[in-house]
């Protein structure tokens, strides 16, 4: 009887789960604000002046033309998604940002509700902007955000993103490519250097072991075999305290998504639309 109940519960969950996922996705799409994707700069929190907005737009257009990747900046006063990550990903996916089939591009969200800066990458941008580069971008924009110069913060975002785009794919992601669905896939390639080093070490070690087995004559400098264990009495060690020394190492906190998985140098997760995203953020 107990087994039957467990069987029915599992069957129910398996049948219902896909519908639940679709329901969540539909709900996420519905409560995502709809925008004109050609504008690129969306200052809902009214943080930029008109001049700053114009400047940011020009920079964004230049970036898109030069690197064939989309870029956008969003500021919000209230976050109806709960987390900056969810908002940024849904805003990008449900407004259909992104160049090419793999929806290449990145977006900066300045979330005044959670006081958080969040960058989301999609498609080819996941390869260019690994976690290390995203950290550097966040370092640059965080300073301006902390002194409430949000216009400079956003401008710095586009400038630093451009610098990294000039360098191309990050070294840590050199073994990956992005497929038409925007997923990061590992390139299949053998590593000759590591193979040679490991083979050399293994063959040398094994041959040494074989040779050492030929040596049978060994001097002995202890007498453990002749110790009477029954008559042995060893006392507990006595320790007299001398000095103490304490050191500490800081723990680096980042808002990188703990549910993400590591692909090369990028932490990757999937948004509610199912699209693969990289990204990271920082509270200010």
């Amino acid at each position, binding site marked *: 009887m107990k087994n039957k109940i467990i069987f029915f519960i599992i069957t129910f969950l398996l049948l219902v789960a896909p519908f639940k996922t679709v329901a969540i996705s539909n709900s996420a799409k519905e409560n995502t604000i709809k925008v004109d994707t050609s504008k690129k700069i969306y200052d809902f929190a009214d943080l930029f002046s008109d001049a700053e907005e114009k400047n940011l737009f020009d920079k964004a257009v230049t970036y898109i033309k030069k690197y064939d990747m989309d870029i956008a900046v969003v500021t919000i006063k209230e976050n109806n998604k709960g987390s900056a990550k969810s908002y940024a990903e849904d805003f990008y996916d449900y407004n259909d940002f992104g160049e090419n089939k793999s929806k290449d591009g990145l977006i900066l969200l300045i979330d005044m509700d959670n006081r958080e800066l969040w960058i989301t990458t999609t498609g080819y941008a996941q390869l260019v902007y690994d976690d290390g580069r995203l950290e550097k971008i966040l370092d640059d924009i965080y300073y301006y955000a902390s002194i409430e110069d949000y216009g400079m913060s956003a401008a710095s975002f586009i400038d630093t993103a451009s610098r990294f785009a000039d360098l191309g794919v990050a070294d840590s992601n050199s073994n990956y490519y992005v497929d038409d669905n925007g997923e990061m896939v590992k390139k299949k390639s053998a590593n000759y250097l590591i193979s040679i080093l490991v083979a050399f070490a*293994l063959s040398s070690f094994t041959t040494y072991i074989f040779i050492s087995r030929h040596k049978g*004559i*060994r*001097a002995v400098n202890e007498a453990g075999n002749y110790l009477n264990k029954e008559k*042995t009495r060893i006392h*507990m060690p006595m320790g007299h305290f001398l000095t103490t020394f304490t050191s500490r190492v800081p723990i680096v906190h980042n808002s990188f998504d703990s549910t993400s998985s590591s692909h090369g140098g990028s932490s990757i997760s999937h948004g509610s639309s199912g699209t693969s995203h990289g990204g990271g953020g920082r509270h200010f």
Partner: protein
Amino acid sequence: MKAVNHKCPNCNASLKYNPKSKNWICEYCGGIFSLKDLEKNENKFKNVTEKVKDNSADMDEYYCEDCGAKILADKNTSATFCVYCKNTVLLKNRLTDKFAPVKIIPFTKTKEEAIEGFKKVCKGKLLMPKEFDDPKNIKEITGVYIPFWLYSCDMDYKITGKGNRVSTWSTSDYIYTKTDTYQVERDGQFSFSNIPVDGSTRFNDAIMNSIEPFDYSELVDFNPSYLAGFLSEKYDVEANDAKKICIDRAKESCCDELSGDIGYAPFILENKNGEIKDEKTDYVLLPVWMLNVKYKDKLYTFAMNGETGKMIGDIPYSLKKAVFTWIIIFTISFLIMLFITYVI
């Protein structure tokens, strides 16, 4: 000077000790005799006549009791063979007084088992040159009773040094590491029984170490009859010199026992000292089969514990085989690693 030989009570031929049956066998009439049988018939030690010094340095001259042939024996030999009639001769003046062993472990392994032991120890040595383990390469195989000093003592030992205890913990912002340093002392009482040291400079100490341990439950009171069919030596390393080696070994073991699981890491030893009590040294003869193997004009020495059968020796390796093995392992590992790095 006459050497002494054990004679068959039946036919007066020379007897040999058989390790398997632990009896003495006459190869002529087939008679089998126990120790008790021999003791009933054995002549008492003859008085030693004045030694005739030979021209050879460090050699004494004896006459075989059977055939009268001259036997030359160096100063440390106490049992040898007559080169003419092949009988064992015991040089009893070298087995008396201070050179009289207290105990002996008789041979339990035969010559044939020594040859088998040699073949067995060569098995599985992939880099061994071809045909090295052919018994034809064994130039000489001799059963020898080696003189040993067995040293026993009690030891009070103490070590001191510095030791650390490390603990770590973390808060939300930091990982802390605390290192406490202590001055550590530990002592213990130890008892060692029968640490062996070979009492002959003729035999390599490392070889004698390597065939340890012997099973001392097989020790019996010494009787020259056990030497029949084997060579033997008397000691030329004095007890006090041998004792120093034993004490060093005992101290090393005390140190190992005291510093093991001491509870501090790392522990740096600064000082160690000990006091020795209840010392005892016994002079015994222990059985060893010595094999000299000649391969490509080079001599290799192998030794087998004549009681336990433990065989040791340094087996040469072929450089060609070593290089070939290296290349094979390298190639296979390289291909496997290429596959693994491709797939991962």
